[in-house]
């Protein structure tokens, strides 16, 4: 029948049209990798990789120039570790509260609020860190600098907390009712059920959520740029001003750097390191999620 032929033709046309759209994502990833590699090789032609990865002085713009990336890495590490320190315990506790103790109505109010918290643009958090958190911290630690890692860590922690609590809450709810009810029937308290049954059952997914949240914290840019400063120094003191990898890229982009020369390529060298770290963590996190999906 003619209409059958027409619709078959249309079917093939639709498929031919839709197919390429899916390829865009692959092209994007390939392009990111290629570009980063290409520009980074421009950098590594002049600076040996070992100098970059293990050097402890990052001064690419001032004489005498030095290209050791470790201060940026420790800066990122300080902020990320602090953020994880805040987000992981609080996120877990919030997830327990939402899944165990909160009444359904309350849960329906709290969840959207947490989502709003997660959706607030990061510069807002940066501003908050600068104008509220740091002055508040100054009362406790008078020797704290105006730009400091701790402020950045606190706001980034708040930013990633909803991620942890939401993912953990979802997997706490998926624990089979029968197991929990059995424990309750034996006289267990909610605390005991949570710690001894729910958490071990969902442990891998919980860990995966931690990894993904930390990866997000590592890639966080504007909040730390505003809050933690532009002072790349190798320190583990959270009260000092530091610079994260992401903040450095912003600094270069805002400044007057020519489109060639080692200084320009530092952007990409740091970028490729950042990409590699977050990619590694994301792959790891998703692998854990996929492996232990109990659907």
């Amino acid at each position, binding site marked *: 029948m003619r209409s059958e032929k027409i619709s078959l033709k249309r079917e093939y046309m639709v498929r031919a049209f839709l197919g390429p*759209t*899916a390829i865009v994502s692959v092209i994007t990833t390939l392009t990111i990798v290629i570009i980063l590699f290409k520009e980074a090789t421009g950098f590594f032609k002049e600076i040996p990789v070992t100098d970059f990865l293990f050097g402890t002085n990052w001064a690419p713009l001032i004489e005498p120039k030095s290209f050791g990336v470790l201060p940026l890495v420790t800066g990122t590490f300080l902020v990320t570790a602090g953020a994880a320190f805040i987000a992981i315990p*609080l996120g877990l506790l919030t997830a327990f509260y939402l899944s165990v103790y909160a009444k359904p109505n309350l849960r329906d109010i709290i969840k959207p609020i947490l989502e709003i918290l997660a*959706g607030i*643009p990061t*510069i807002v958090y940066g*501003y908050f860190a600068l104008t509220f958190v740091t002055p508040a911290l100054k009362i406790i630690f008078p020797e704290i600098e105006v730009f400091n890692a701790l402020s950045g860590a606190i706001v980034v922690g708040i930013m990633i907390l909803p991620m942890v609590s939401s993912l953990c809450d979802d997997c706490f709810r998926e624990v089979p009712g029968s197991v929990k009810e059995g424990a309750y029937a034996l006289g267990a308290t909610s605390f005991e059920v949570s710690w001894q049954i729910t958490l071990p059952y969902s442990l891998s997914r919980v860990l995966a959520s931690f990894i993904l949240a930390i990866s997000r914290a590592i890639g966080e840019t504007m909040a730390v740029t505003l809050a933690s400063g532009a002072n790349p120094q190798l320190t583990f003191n959270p009260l000092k001003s530091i610079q994260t990898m992401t903040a450095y*890229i912003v600094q270069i982009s805002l400044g007057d750097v020519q489109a060639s020369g080692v200084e320009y390529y530092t952007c990409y060298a740091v*970028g490729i390191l950042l990409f590699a770290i977050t990619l590694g963590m994301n792959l790891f996190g998703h692998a854990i999620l996929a492996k232990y999906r109990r659907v």
Partner: protein
Amino acid sequence: MNDLTEFEKRIKWRKSKENIFKLISLVATYSCILLLFVLVFDLFMDGKEWLGLKFLTNFQSRFPHKAGIYAGLMGTLWLTITTALISIPLGVLAGIFLEEYGIPGKIGKIIEINISNLAGVPSIVYGLLGLSVFVRGAQMGRSIIAGALTLGLLILPVIIVATRESLKAVPLSLRMAGYALGARKYQVTFGQVLPSALPGILTGIILAIGRAIGETAPLVVIGALSYVSFVPASVKDEFTVLPIMIYNWASRPQEAFHGLASAGILVLLIVMLCLNGLAIYFRIKNQKGKRS
């Protein structure tokens, strides 16, 4: 009788552990919410005196009292619409293809992993991508189109995932009924499945756009300007956006600029709140539809 006392003691200890746990989890949850309110209140206090019609319609200025966010608002508007025009069709269609048609075998799996990885790449890396490919490579300069393409790529995985999840939620019976009546796959997909999944897809799109509006880092890398005293007239023009103006003001040491920054943030938050409200509305509508 000693056993009973032992027993009672243990019960008491376990009960108190329970109560402590309940208390600290409650404190943890509500302290975050409290923090949100503190944040909004603090912003409001800092910024309210700067809000006003002049603020919305003035351009940037060295003098805080003359400064306004008009350039940023227009830039954000231009950029958001362009980004939406690029990424929404692309993302939704890709999501439909991946979910309904699918790519078999290993390649399909790689694409899936790929998309979830792209969603986790830091936004600033997208900025570097945009700088190399769009600003320099395609020689688009620091234009809106370059920024829109970059942000479009950034939110593309979000839209694809949201589309796929919404399509997954459509019951199989709907599709089967279509096929049983002799429809082709494209007829079932676009005539039945897509309309059914539309509220969920819209929610995802709105949230993705909300994310794009608040993005700063990739645009900074591309070279969106900080001091702009004109409104874009085409997608090839240079531009600034509201988040960058906020960042610019917040980085200055003078108090007055901090007030401006908080006023700008309030405007941004109101926009985001409206978008989130719209998304929640669609989500509720979606759930109601399923229940009936």
